[in-house]
């Protein structure tokens, strides 16, 4: 809004009031998680202020230094699993979606483009409950069950369509001139795509990869179903095992949640600047 529109004097304090209220709303549950994680003992009493009674790092220690049945350092194993699977999901999604999104952005009229886009959009409306079972039968046929690669493929099924829409929008905003210049300069269309379009789309690629990474990093239902050994678990799976119906170790769960959240939050904030542009240009439209 224009700099000349400063508005009446009470607008500034009011703005801060609204923002502070929103921040309180946004932070309150997070503070609860933090206080739970730091709390040594749990009490069946309600409190409004998220402050630990007897602060200790025991919960963190328990999560970080847990050992598996054969003495392996579980946290490091599970961290590695999570990183490998999430990164592979992000790479797969980007790898598959990028050329397709480019084709949709650059040759929007090719035969099948419209139908394909519509079909892809439609898949997003189909609840996953119904396709999960056949998907597993399929992976079984491919002999990819219970493997990291299998899990990556499962995650890719949701990450790829999203990435295609996201990147199509991004490529549409990159001037055609750039690749034409490259082609006149001696590049094939593919070279132009690789050497010029992709680097120019880096912010959007980063945001899209972040979303794919986050979705895999945070997923636990499929992963829990899928992986059977403690040393094969991803972090969220290991984490939610602390919360049973009868033996909820909320403190450990909270400590684990924080450990799981910190890396994605760091990534998220690192890419924050790209977020606005990446999303608006993405304009997930039909």
């Amino acid at each position, binding site marked *: *809004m*224009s*700099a*000349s*529109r*400063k508005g009446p004097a009470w607008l*500034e304090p009011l703005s801060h009031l609204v*923002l502070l209220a*929103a*921040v309180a709303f946004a932070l309150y*549950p997070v503070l609860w998680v933090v206080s739970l994680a730091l709390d040594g003992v*749990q*009490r*069946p*009493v*309600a409190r*409004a202020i998220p402050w630990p009674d007897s602060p200790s790092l025991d919960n963190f220690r328990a999560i970080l230094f847990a050992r598996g*049945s054969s003495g392996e350092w579980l946290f490091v194993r599970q961290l590695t699993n999570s990183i490998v699977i999430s990164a592979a999901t992000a790479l797969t999604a980007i790898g598959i979606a990028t*050329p*397709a999104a480019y*084709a949709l952005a650059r*040759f929007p*009229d090719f*035969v099948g483009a419209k139908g*394909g886009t519509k*079909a892809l959009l*439609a*898949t997003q*409306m*189909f*609840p996953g*409950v119904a396709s*999960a*079972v*056949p998907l597993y*039968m399929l992976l079984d046929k491919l*002999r990819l069950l219970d*493997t990291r690669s299998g899990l990556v493929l499962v995650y890719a*099924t949701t990450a*790829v369509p999203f990435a*295609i829409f996201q990147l199509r929008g991004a490529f549409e905003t990159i001037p055609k001139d750039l690749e034409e210049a490259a082609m006149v300069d001696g590049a094939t*269309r593919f070279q132009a795509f690789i050497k010029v379009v992709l680097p120019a789309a880096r912010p959007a690629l980063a945001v899209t990869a972040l979303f794919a990474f986050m979705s895999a990093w945070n997923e636990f*239902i499929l992963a*829990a*179903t*899928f992986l*059977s050994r403690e040393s094969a678990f991803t972090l969220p799976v290991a984490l*939610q095992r602390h*919360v049973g119906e*009868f*033996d*909820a170790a*909320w403190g450990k769960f909270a400590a684990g*949640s924080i450990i*799981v*959240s910190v890396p994605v*939050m760091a990534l998220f904030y690192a890419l924050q600047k790209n977020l*606005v542009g990446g999303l608006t240009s993405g*304009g*997930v439209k039909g």
Partner: protein
Amino acid sequence: MNARALRWTLAARARLALALLSWLVLIVCAGEAQAQRTITVWHPYRGAEQRAFDQVLRAFERDRPGVSVQTLAVPFDAYAAKLEAAIPRGNGPDLFVDAHERIPSYLARRIIVSAESAIAAVPRTSDGLDLEPIALEAVQANGERYGVPLSLKCLALFVDEELWERAGRPSLDSLASIAAARTSLPTGAYPLVYYASNAYFHSAILHGLGGQLFDPQRGAYAFEGPAALESLALVQRLLADRVIPPEVDGASVTPYFRSGRAMTVISGPWLVGELGDARRYRVAVLPRVREGGRAMSPFVTVEVAFLASNAHAPGLAAELATFLASPEAARLRASVGRQVVATRSVWSEAELANDPVLAAFRRAANAGRVMPTHNNMRLSWEPANQAIRRALRDPQATRVAVEQGRRRYDDASRPLPAKRSALPLQLTLGALALALAFRSVQRARDPEFRAAVKRSVPAYAYVTHAVVIVALLVVLPLVLGATTSLYAGRDGALEYVGGANYWDIITARGGSLFASGTFYTVLLVTVLWTIANLTLHVSIGVVLAIILSRPLLKLRAIYRVLLIIPWAVPSYVTALAWKGMFHRQTGAMNAILAALGVEPISWFAQFSTAFTANVVTNTWLGFPFMMVVTIGALAAIPKDLYEAAEVDGATPWQQFRHITLPLLRPTLLPAVSMGAVWTFNQFNVIFLVSGGEPDGATEILVTEAYRWAFTRQAQYGYAAAYAVLIFGVLVLGTRLLERLTLGKQGGGK
């Protein structure tokens, strides 16, 4: 249900696991090629039980040179499904440990074989086999015994000796008088704490009053009639007299006991491990229902060593099963694994006989009732749980609640639609394929089409691989899933029934169309849910974005960073955190209300508050996305428009109304329609926060479909029909939305 079954972790995992895992495993096991003298054992143990089990197996190996036992600890949730998938394919174990109540299901799938030979090898004592009779009875089916019983599990009473200073065990009446006196208890403490709203716990009382949850003889649901009503009245009285605290769930029993706020609790063996030495306590048999009356009688589950069919080393497996029940192994399992072993002779040994906890659990088990093994037993839990919850929440409605439970059971166990010939479907599909083929041939002849295809070739170079992968991984499973909707069956045995599933859903199975739990009611809730969320997401997002875009705002960067936190934190973490905050006893929400002088609210007891809790959680999760999108859209609005408007004398409100809003629309519309689809299918929040409470009233279509697929005996066909209907509703809805907004845009110009 097995006592360990109660430990299913986040409900989310458990059921999905059961269903999906039917196909897993194979690779891991296939890799472990079976050598001649190798035997594979699967078990669900963790912690101390696992340590004990491993020690037993090492002892077995020690006695038999050349034999090696390979073990796989399978998380409970995935266990049955994994077995059912692996054993028929020859990838399964030779021997596995599981609860006795799965015998009929395993027999039906032919994955276990008779264990008479192994049982015959178990040593005999003067009065028969060296195994508890109750346990032997549990493994009986069709006149044969399947599996060697290893240990017993059931509920017992934990007594805090620091609070209950008298000798002997308390009865419900004595606990009630303590509650009435209120003097001998610290503030905030209760005479008895247990998971009152759960059918597994409640059935102990029910049995004490002569009732039962399920009649194994008739194979019928039995939570009705005078005994059921009396049992509910009894618990209602306990609540009213403050003998037990309101709304305790399974997980909050432990903190009550640990912090000295429960004189007694009813719980299972797992509590021992969690208590450590936090309190001085002892374990006793469950109290009598009333003075002079019968004792409460818990369900007993027997853990059994099953001999798998298709075993690679059946002889060795039988040998190991016998060994597991031997006194030598039982001693280890009891002392290290803290199990109530079914081997009788070890109980006469001093070490075990003098172990107060184990001995008490053994007494409790012998006073208990073996869990029925009928297949429909599993269908009884959900209706019974809901009936109990409703009756405890609203004593006036006890009778209605019980009747409703009956109806829910009938609904879930209703006979499957009749099998039909798939011929009409095949014919239709064939005709469709022909028509399609004909059309494509025709099109291929059209020169203009051919030219267009030719022009498209460069594009195909970029999309082909994505098309193949998406078709294979996304579209194919989806089409297969949709096809499942024409089939019906339980536990994965499917038969073609045509449109019967759809017909059942659309006609509400003959009941009233807007009764609770019908498609239409749930659809209504879903639409309400979507509208409420979107309205809040967009209005909060836009307001914050506008404030954050004010040119001279201080601390803008900090606000922005803090306000997108909800987006960055994994949603299941925060969903669970919010669920905790809405807890009646321990939740922060009620603490805030209390600070404001408002009575605490049972958030999940009525629709309005449960729905509100869901919406608050999802609003928290969703507003940052809209905010960020709006910030981007605002930045793209040219500044001179505002200047021009200002020169024209527009007030700030008019500027917002006539410049900001119309110019935000093109960017916000796609985000809103995508958000609508996401919210419509938002599974995590509903499932984790309210879980459909009360009585499934806050269930939305996706979670309802999920329940049919995974908690009502895996009725995939029915669930798939739900999914297809959801898809239809969404496609229609988005079309409609598009029409409406397009019309508006046109009119606005």
